[in-house]
């Protein structure tokens, strides 16, 4: 379920002049190169200069590019130094999904990228001079970040088509949101409609932007799981798993076999919960009451099982670095297996019900995601598998016991809403298969590595040397229920020797999920489709907008 870090990594340093050439060369070298992420960070070494020293470094920011070659699973990192008042070429011409990432870099740090958009992605539009919330005081003369209370831009509520002679004037406008997609988060879908079909669609995100990356700056790493669990609330255990996995790969910790088995069961249950949300939303939209009842029951049952495991809180922080927080109760496997058996039967009957339901088929065999388009936008997870691309990192990397377990990767054909629904149901069935095989053979033993603290303290000196100029960094990526979840942290340089994890301080925190790219792709998929199918398509992608906005 984890990939990326244990594979080859190639790193490049470049500057603004040579960026486009380098990216072009890489693209021709690796035919299946995916752009995973672009993010900016400040040049902190320059920031640490004492007051009064005027020789500012020539580099103010770094732009970091992260690519993945999906054939060899090789990571390619590009780092580029940028000056505050210089423009940077945009790579959106080569990788279309760079556009949102670059907009974010502009919005948060004010890095001038030469792409056409200057609209806000995550924060609300503000009248007057722009301020860039992620910048430190280095470029600002005022104390603290200059942000809010602000005046709303008057054109905020105005439809775009009030401009004279704009082509949108000839289309009818339709706006959905922002309070739709209830468990997934607020989002706004704006559509230009001609007759029945959508001419152009826009997705407005950022309604649950909470500046997590800024908030965690300078904080201890112990706080990460608390926030990540709440961020990926559709499958909360993936949040805590990501942060645990991050430190396990950083310190090369092997977790006990019992913990591995239980982790697999918990994560697969979480995956089921996430799929249930998408299916619930879809069946609710298309008035399929019988399947809706099944999905509601399944999610409530999963919640109940998790509440028992984590002693009464939905976000129980079950998965911690080195293993598990607490062992499962003796009765848990029996209850869980009974649930698995029952849900399996229900899923089979729901699938056959939908297969013969003409009303359902007529409404949902629409909005196909072309697999070329999907890959260009970096859509991963079940959404791309519904279009027929066989890409599941559980099968390719085989972490934990996945190599010893028998399960299949379901694939769709056309990538319509109907296909995405069936893929999710089939994945639930496969997850049930995995759970039943794992729970039968969970070995006895510890749930937490012995001598964990001593092991970490011993490795800390090697990973975090006492050096005021060295900025340690690490990156981890896991295969979540809706594509990859990525975490990258730049740590603060050490002045003293540290031995405990709680002493580690974060300098730059970066989290991104696969939903970010899927959300970027969605407006393209919707064009020339009937406008009634828009909401169903939005639900069928199951994007967690809390993760998109962060």
């Amino acid at each position: 379920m984890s990939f990326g870090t244990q594979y080859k990594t190639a790193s490049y340093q470049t500057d603004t002049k040579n960026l486009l050439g380098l990216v072009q060369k890489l693209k021709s070298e690796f035919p299946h190169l995916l752009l995973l992420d672009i993010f900016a960070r400040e040049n902190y070494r320059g920031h640490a200069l004492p007051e009064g020293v005027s020789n500012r470094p020539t580099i103010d920011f770094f732009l970091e590019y992260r690519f993945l070659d999906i054939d060899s699973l090789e990571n390619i990192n590009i780092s580029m130094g940028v000056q505050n008042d210089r423009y940077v070429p945009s790579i959106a011409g080569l990788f279309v999904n760079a556009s949102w990432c670059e907009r974010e870099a502009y919005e948060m740090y004010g890095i001038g990228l030469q792409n056409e958009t200057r609209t806000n992605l995550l924060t609300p539009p503000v009248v007057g001079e722009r301020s860039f919330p992620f910048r430190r005081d280095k470029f600002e003369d005022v104390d603290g970040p200059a942000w809010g209370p602000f005046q709303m831009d008057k054109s905020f509520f105005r439809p775009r088509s009030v401009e004279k002679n704009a082509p949108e004037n000839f289309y009818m406008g339709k706006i959905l949101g922002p309070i739709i997609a209830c468990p997934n988060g607020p989002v706004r879908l704006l559509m230009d409609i001609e007759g029945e079909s959508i001419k152009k669609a826009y997705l407005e995100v950022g309604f649950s932007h909470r500046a997590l990356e800024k908030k965690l700056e300078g904080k201890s790493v112990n706080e990460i799981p608390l926030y990540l669990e709440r961020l990926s609330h559709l499958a909360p255990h993936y949040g805590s798993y990501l942060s645990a996995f991050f430190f396990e790969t950083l310190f090369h910790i092997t977790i006990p076999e019992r913990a591995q088995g239980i982790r697999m069961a918990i994560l697969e249950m979480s995956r089921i919960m996430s799929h249930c949300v998408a299916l619930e939303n879809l069946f609710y939209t298309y008035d399929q009451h019988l399947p809706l009842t099944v999905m509601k029951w399944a999610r409530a049952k999963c919640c109940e099982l998790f509440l028992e495991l984590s002693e009464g809180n939905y976000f129980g922080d079950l998965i911690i670095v080195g293993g598990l927080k607490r062992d499962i109760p003796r009765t848990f496997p029996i209850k869980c297996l009974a649930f698995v058996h029952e849900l399996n039967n229900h899923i089979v009957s729901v699938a056959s019900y939908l297969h013969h339901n003409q009303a359902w088929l007529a409404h949902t065999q629409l909005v196909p995601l072309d697999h070329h388009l999907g890959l260009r936008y970096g859509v991963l997870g079940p959404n791309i598998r519904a279009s027929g691309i066989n890409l599941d990192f559980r099968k390719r990397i085989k972490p934990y016991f996945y190599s010893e377990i028998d399960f299949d990767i379901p694939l769709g054909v056309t990538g319509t809403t109907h296909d995405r629904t069936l893929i999710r149901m089939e994945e639930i069935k496969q997850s049930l298969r995995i759970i039943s095989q794992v729970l039968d053979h969970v070995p006895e033993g510890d749930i937490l590595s012995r001598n964990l603290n001593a092991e970490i303290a011993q490795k800390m000196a090697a990973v975090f040397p006492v050096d005021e100029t060295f900025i340690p960094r690490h990156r981890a990526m896991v295969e979540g229920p809706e594509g990859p979840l990525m975490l990258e942290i730049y740590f603060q340089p050490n002045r003293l020797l540290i031995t405990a994890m709680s002493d580690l301080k974060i300098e730059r925190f970066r989290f991104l999920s696969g939903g970010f790219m899927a959300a970027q792709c969605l407006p393209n998929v919707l064009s020339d489709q009937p406008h009634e199918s828009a909401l169903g398509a939005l639900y069928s992608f199951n994007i967690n907008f809390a993760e998109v906005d962060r």
Partner: protein
Amino acid sequence: MSARFNLPIIKHERVPALTLSSETFLEQLRHWSNFQYLLPYFAQFSCCSYGMENLYRSGEIEIAGKNIFCSVQPVSRQADILIVGGVISKKLSPYLLEVYQEMLFPRWVISVGACASAGGPFKSYAIEAGLSALFPVDVYVPGCPPTEKAIIEGLRILQKRVEDRQCSAVTEPDMISRALR
């Protein structure tokens, strides 16, 4: 034989009694309907939707020990109780205000979870520090996230307060007198 004519029996102490003043009668009837018929609307945003999701989809909510009618409304225009849960960002708050302004009079607000009540763990430059900055809030339900039971308990408390006239309901001024005119 004359047919027996049964009067409907309403089991409640505060049935609007007949009065000579129509204004008092209408006021009492209105008050009775306020606490007897709850029309909540759910606006749930992020992680707090865990506990609210099932309530929102359930159509009707049963409050234990109370013989009242509580039906979840699909749109805010038909609702008089707004139940808000989740992270309220500054980008979202104008829309939430719009939702609030569309609601029926008199109206009440229940804030669910730490974030909606006071900013919560994610408090930062992009987050509203509590719903009370936007509009008056009547009941705060604690928790991160609160359970389904806690939300129903919040509804029960609000109902009790409305019944005892302890809630300063946001009422449209002299609506009754305008209706009488």
